[in-house]
């Protein structure tokens, strides 16, 4: 693999610090790649090359003045359900077309405080509801690996931006798999932190007890670096944990350096249900092969059974849609967003929401409203939350004497655009392997595992709460053992300058 391909943001930040690469170069490269490829891929809903270049030049001046922050001048993409004052925040919906928030999400503020430059906002399934980014009101995103296929969702735009080499890293959000599954489909690294690890202030809520800001990056150390920037307590978010922030980048770099040695003495639990019916046999085989490689490197594989996994998907769709139905009630056309005028307030509410929400969002609002409604609350919502406790307990038990659970990230590879449009339930089934970690609130990392029919397959590592450092270490060790091709970012000139700098 050439140095050009191995450039990652960490190496970039070193090169920037050394002065061998300028932020302006990065900005121009990003703009150029967006210009050449985004007409087809449509990763971005908003990209401002001129603004990025101006900011980059400012970053270079800051650096020249000796005042550079850790990642001064590195471009980053942000999913369009995180509020930004510099760009509209549409959540992929007509109801928020041209909506300009008056405040920035905490995660965005922390990016900017570390010197990163927000290059633009990426496409998503409307209000993060979907697994293909086909439910965006602004058109789908295409998988850069195969543009006839979906990039996954709902953070498809962020995954595609990284996979297409437009940016080195991006923020997404993960509620039931929305960072991990697109990472798997696009062949990049996706991390969903422990629930509460990253502030949700400014992340437009889909399902409050499940949503987390996640990272999409080309390599595992970059995921560690990005997590370290955004993680940590935020007084604006009462659900944000006060746990100390580990050195995630350091843990990943240690794993990268160790390689196989990192797996010696480790125990990986393999849930039987994650490799059986409902999972494409070729995908299962690919991930099993990876597990065997880890075993050869010294890891102990323990087959476990997690029976509650069979109800996890149903529990997820009841809980998530219930919370969503409440979270989306604020979109009523009164204080912001789309208003379709009516004769009365009732009329205005109904018309605005009818016109502003897409089909999938309506479907989920209806399902969630029903699950909470009088007479059904106990049978659906409460029961789903009890099933959730079972899933969490079962995952805790499985991890009692294992370092991580290992599963395929998705039961399939990227499917063709439109393949599931006739059957929403088939789309929901794509989430079966990612929702358990979401329900339990545990951290989960998806890394490239290989290819099936030429399409990327992801493997998922699930850890105990706040064990991101361990996951990143193991994930980076895997990266060293079985490196995957990194998207070309058009930085050939800068490549020689950073040769060897990423390690």
């Amino acid at each position, binding site marked *: 693999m050439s140095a050009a391909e191995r450039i990652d943001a960490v190496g970039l930040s070193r090169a920037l610090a050394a002065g061998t690469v300028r932020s302006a170069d990065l900005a121009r490269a990003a703009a150029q790649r967006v210009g050449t490829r985004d007409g087809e891929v449509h990763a971005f809903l908003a990209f401002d090359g001129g603004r990025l270049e101006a900011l980059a030049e400012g970053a270079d001046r800051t650096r020249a003045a000796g005042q550079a922050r850790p990642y001064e001048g590195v471009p980053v993409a942000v999913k369009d359900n*995180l*509020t930004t004052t510099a760009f509209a*925040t549409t*959540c992929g919906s007509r109801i*928020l077309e041209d*909506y300009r*928030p*008056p*405040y920035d*999400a905490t995660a965005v503020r922390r990016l900017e405080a570390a010197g990163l430059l927000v290059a633009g906002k990426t496409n998503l399934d409307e209000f993060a509801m979907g697994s293909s980014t086909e439910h965006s009101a602004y058109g789908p995103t295409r998988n850069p690996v195969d543009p006839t296929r979906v990039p996954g969702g709902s953070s498809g735009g962020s995954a595609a931006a990284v996979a297409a080499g437009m940016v080195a890293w991006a923020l997404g959000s993960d509620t039931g798999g929305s960072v991990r599954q697109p990472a798997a489909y696009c062949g990049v690294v996706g991390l969903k932190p422990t629930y509460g690890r990253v502030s*949700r*202030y*400014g*992340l*437009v*809520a889909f*399902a*409050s*007890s499940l949503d987390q800001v996640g990272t999409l990056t080309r390599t595992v150390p970059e995921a560690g670096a990005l997590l370290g920037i955004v993680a940590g307590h935020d*007084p*604006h*978010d*009462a*659900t944000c944990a006060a746990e100390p922030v580990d050195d995630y980048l350091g843990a990943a770099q240690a794993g990268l350096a160790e390689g196989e040695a990192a797996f010696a003495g480790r125990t990986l639990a393999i849930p039987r249900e994650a490799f059986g019916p409902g999972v494409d046999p070729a995908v299962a085989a690919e991930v099993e092969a990876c597990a065997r490689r880890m075993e050869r490197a010294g890891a102990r594989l323990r087959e476990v059974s997690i029976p509650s996994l069979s109800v996890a998907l149903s529990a997820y769709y009841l809980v998530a849609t*219930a*919370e969503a*139905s*409440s979270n*989306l*009630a*604020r*979109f*009523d056309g*009164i*204080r*912001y967003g789309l208003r379709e005028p009516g004769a009365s*307030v*009732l009329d205005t*509410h109904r018309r605005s929401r009818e016109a502003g929400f897409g089909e999938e969002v309506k479907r989920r609002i209806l399902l969630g*409203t029903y699950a*909470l*409604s*009088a007479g059904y*609350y106990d049978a659906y*919502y409460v029961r789903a939350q009890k099933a959730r406790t079972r899933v969490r307990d079962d995952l805790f038990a499985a991890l009692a004497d294992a370092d991580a659970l290992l599963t395929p990230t998705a039961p399939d590879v990227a499917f063709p655009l439109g393949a599931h449009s006739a059957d929403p339930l088939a789309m929901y089934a794509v989430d079966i392997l990612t929702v358990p970690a979401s329900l339990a609130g545990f951290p989960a990392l998806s890394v490239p595992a290989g290819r099936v029919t030429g399409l990327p397959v992801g493997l998922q590592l699930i850890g105990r709460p706040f064990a991101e450092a361990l996951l990143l270490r193991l994930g980076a060790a895997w990266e060293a053992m079985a490196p995957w091709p990194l998207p070309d970012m058009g930085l050939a000139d800068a490549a020689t300058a950073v040769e060897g700098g990423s390690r």
Partner: protein
Amino acid sequence: MSTQIAPVALLADRFEYVIGLEVHIELSTRTKMFCACPVTFGAPPNTAVCPVCLGLPGALPRPNSEAVRFAIRLGLALGAQIRSRGKFDRKNYFYPDLPKGYQISQYDQPIVEGGHIDVPAAGGGVRRVRVERAHLEEDAGKLLHGEGEARVDLNRAGVPLVEVVSAPDLRSPSEARAYVAELRAIAEALGISDVRMEEGSLRVDANVSIRPAGETAYGQRVEVKNMNSLRSLERALVHEGARQAALVGAGERVRGETRGWDEARGVTYAMRLKEGEDDYRYFPDPDLPPLVLADDAVENERNALPELPAQRRSRYEGLGLRADDSALLAGRLGSARYFDAALAAGGDPRDLATWVLGEGSRIENEGGPSLAAGGLSPAQLVRLLARLREGAIARTAAKGLFESLVRDGGDVDQRIAAEGLAVVTDPGALNDAIERVLAQNAKAVADVQGGKDKAMGALVGGVMRELRGRARAPEVEAAIRARLGLA
């Protein structure tokens, strides 16, 4: 009026009231319940708002610790249980003054459970009114209705409220009024709210039903809203009870509905309800962790509880005041504090009570300032009463001086001197005045001498007028009797 009397009588003979009250108390914290916007009164519309209370996408609630403390304090004052581990729930409905499309409240784990308020029972004795629960929630904004449109002001959206729900233990409108008055006095004494019904910092909704006297089953209850003062609360309940009694008396059924009180017309009216509005789909708010109180949170509040109205009433009765006077004095923080300060300045409890509740109330009822707000300090009132008791001034002069000082301020002794209010002590002046009056009232003199004591009043009055009130009637009368050679 006659149509009103008959049903009320009907009520008294055949039916009894069953009333439960839901009282919303707006807390006087500095900031809102779930965000740091200031709680203000009268600020320009939509200036005390932020992403959280506006319900902007991505905003999240953060509970106000002071509001929690205030709720604990109220629970303790009601003798209730304080829940050490509870939660917040979402109450989901759509309305333009509700930015998030849900209200954050507490459904099945309120912070306060149980407790009671005792009020005088309508037929005598004490009515113990059980408090079922009190919980924290956020207020909605304000909707201002116009012609074919309405305007929304969200300054009030998110202000902390405690909702106190009573059991249906009240048996008369007067008891209901007393309950609210007591709850108001308690909240005021605790310093947790301005409790001004006319400003909306105390709001009452009533659930009213009637049933045949002696019946234990409940009748159909009706919710009554929009009562903006204690007086309108009582009037509304009287009217509603009578309305229900008339219906039942005519063989009709009472409809379960919500009715508003129209103060101007003195009637309750049916409020339009939409179908299906009642399903609030309560569920625990996932944006808020469980509300877990620190181990010493309750004890800290218990140790800091101020004197409560019931304790104050007992204290005043212990000083020799009558129960009803004690209740009146203790019922308002301002008058109670004034009274206590006057006691501390050496005043006699019963004397003070008479003046505070007598002349003091009269002045206030006529639109003048309350004693607490007026120009007569507690120490000065004590001085005034001392001068009266010493005989330095007469009662009429004292009343006039009292009013003048309350309205305009000043010093008692200076005013007595400046206006020559002192009782005439010069016997010569007194006798001169007596002579003049006797000369002008020969018939009255003859009557008195003839044994008609009633005519003495006219003579005494005449002398008082001559002396411009600067005399005391008993002394004047004695002097006249002496002059006339009577006993």
